[in-house]
């Protein structure tokens, strides 16, 4: 066999290897989801969703965790959305290229890489202790809002950047001020992209466990929170707690709760992708 044919063979082998690698992750994910569905699907019924936690695996439900996650989701959105979008607008439209703006950029890029558990430590000291919020939904939401802030900022900036320059020029040429241009032209035009980024960031927040454990969110909470200052648990913590228990019944519960959590995560991702496609078409 000469070299050229050997090279061709190697090329074909790599092609096969490449396909195998590409499918590997997806196949593993499919196996995993399949095994979880087998374990947990039978456990899901209305009672499971509406029951309070219990020491008894058969009676335990995810009601408080689900409510906790919804509270967290809503409050995190309220806190991070205005902050993130405002910061992105500043960086994209207002800030001049100088030392200060490059410090801001480096800083945001670094924050995006800080492990989530470190945000937990930050939240524990600042929100739980110094601001005396305790291990409340509010403290948890502030912590997660800071965690997803860099993601919201980066994706918002990209969406604003994608708006054609001609729209800015047209607006300024008509005598619009900077803020009028931003609020009446740029934000509406980039809305779809911003929405996509925000939903993806929130879907990450829904799945976060570690920072909330660190700020002291409890595994066992007998009631759903009724105000931002109440203590809480969330779905991932509930799952973690059930995984940690030795009795087999809780493993089934964990699988069932994972199905619920994955459902929420995938639906959010699906919505995000839907908005992104719609927006990209519109932008063209």
């Amino acid at each position, binding site marked *: 066999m000469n070299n*050229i044919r050997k*090279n061709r063979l*190697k*090329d074909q082998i*790599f092609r096969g290897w*490449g*396909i195998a*690698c*590409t499918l*590997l*992750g997806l196949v*593993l*994910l499919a*196996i995993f989801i399949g095994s*979880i569905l087998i*374990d947990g699907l039978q456990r899901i019924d209305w009672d499971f969703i509406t029951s309070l936690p219990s020491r008894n695996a058969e009676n335990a439900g995810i009601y408080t965790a689900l409510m906790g996650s919804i509270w967290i989701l809503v409050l995190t959105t309220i806190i991070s959305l*205005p*902050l993130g979008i*405002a*910061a992105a607008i*500043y960086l994209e439209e*207002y*800030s001049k290229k100088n030392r200060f703006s490059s410090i*801001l950029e480096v*800083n945001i*890029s670094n924050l995006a*890489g*800080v*492990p*989530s558990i470190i*945000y*937990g*430590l*930050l939240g524990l*000291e*600042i929100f739980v*202790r110094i601001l005396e919020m305790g291990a409340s939904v509010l403290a948890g939401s502030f912590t997660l809002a*800071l965690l997803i*802030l860099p993601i919201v*900022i980066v994706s918002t900036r990209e969406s604003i950047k994608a708006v054609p320059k001609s729209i800015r020029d047209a607006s300024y040429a008509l005598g619009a001020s*900077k*803020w009028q241009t931003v609020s009446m032209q740029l934000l509406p035009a980039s809305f779809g992209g911003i929405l996509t980024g925000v939903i993806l960031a929130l*879907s990450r927040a829904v*799945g976060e*466990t*570690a920072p909330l*454990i*660190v700020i*002291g969110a409890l595994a066992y909470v007998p009631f759903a929170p009724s105000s931002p200052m109440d203590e809480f648990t969330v779905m*991932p913590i509930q799952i*973690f707690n059930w*995984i940690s228990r030795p009795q087999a019944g809780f*493993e089934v519960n*964990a699988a069932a709760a*994972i199905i619920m*959590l*994955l459902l929420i995560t*995938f639906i959010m*991702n699906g919505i995000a*992708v839907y908005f992104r496609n719609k927006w990209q078409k519109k932008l063209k």
Partner: protein
Amino acid sequence: MRKFKEAIIEKSLLASALVTILVTLGIILVLSFEAVNFFREVPIIDFLTDTQWTPLFSDKHFGILPLLSGTLLTSFIAIAFAVPVGLSISIYISEYAPKSFRRTIKPALELLAAVPTVVYGFFALTVVTPFLQTFIPGLSGFNSLSAGLVMGIMIIPFVSSLSEDALHAVPNSLREAAYGMGSTKLQNSFRVLVPAASSGIIVSIILAISRAIGETMIVAIAAGQQPRLTFDPTVPVETITTYIVQVSLGDVQHGSLEYRTIFAAGITLFIFTFLLNTISYRIRKKFQEKYE
């Protein structure tokens, strides 16, 4: 009047941007404040050289090495798995696969990164570990091998997506030159495109490492909670992140030495990821200039 309103708006937008600086300062201050208190009681030499970590026992030792080795071991396994696979995926998608396949497979792979990590932990503990035990008889129920591999699955998209972007950005003229000389796709990929895209690929790998080092739930669930200075992948270990979770789940008094240990552990973690992120940011900036 309009000018005044514009100025107010600009200032409040600026204030929002400054929040990000406050967050960084907050992290650094909180970590160092508690860590300084910690090092008042525990000599930094002991922290760095003691080979035992037993702050919750009566015979207390505060050596970070066992936690560090646990973190590095699980991360190493994850990276050793994710980098070859992720890089192969990126080359396959960018150079071999039809364009339509590329459009569907990229978002599908990114779904792997969207799965909550607590879910991966469950997968490692209940599926991967029992599976590995069938042909590694001595494998403990909690081990770094299974946790590391599953963490590898999670970070595949970090490597594949960013590397693919970098390969995609290599000018087509180089591809043509290589094909024109009679290169196969494989030769073109490894001799021309990967070297040309190396900075982007390195950035993707550094980010993946940083991600693995900071990952918490997978290792907390599947790698165990026993600080142990070892590089044996079959036994339980404890990572820095797991330790922080372990203490947080317990009932530790605020202001106690045990409470401060999690900040000492946290600052160690922060320094590592900060260095990695800074390096990757530098490379990325240089890389952007190269193509602009």
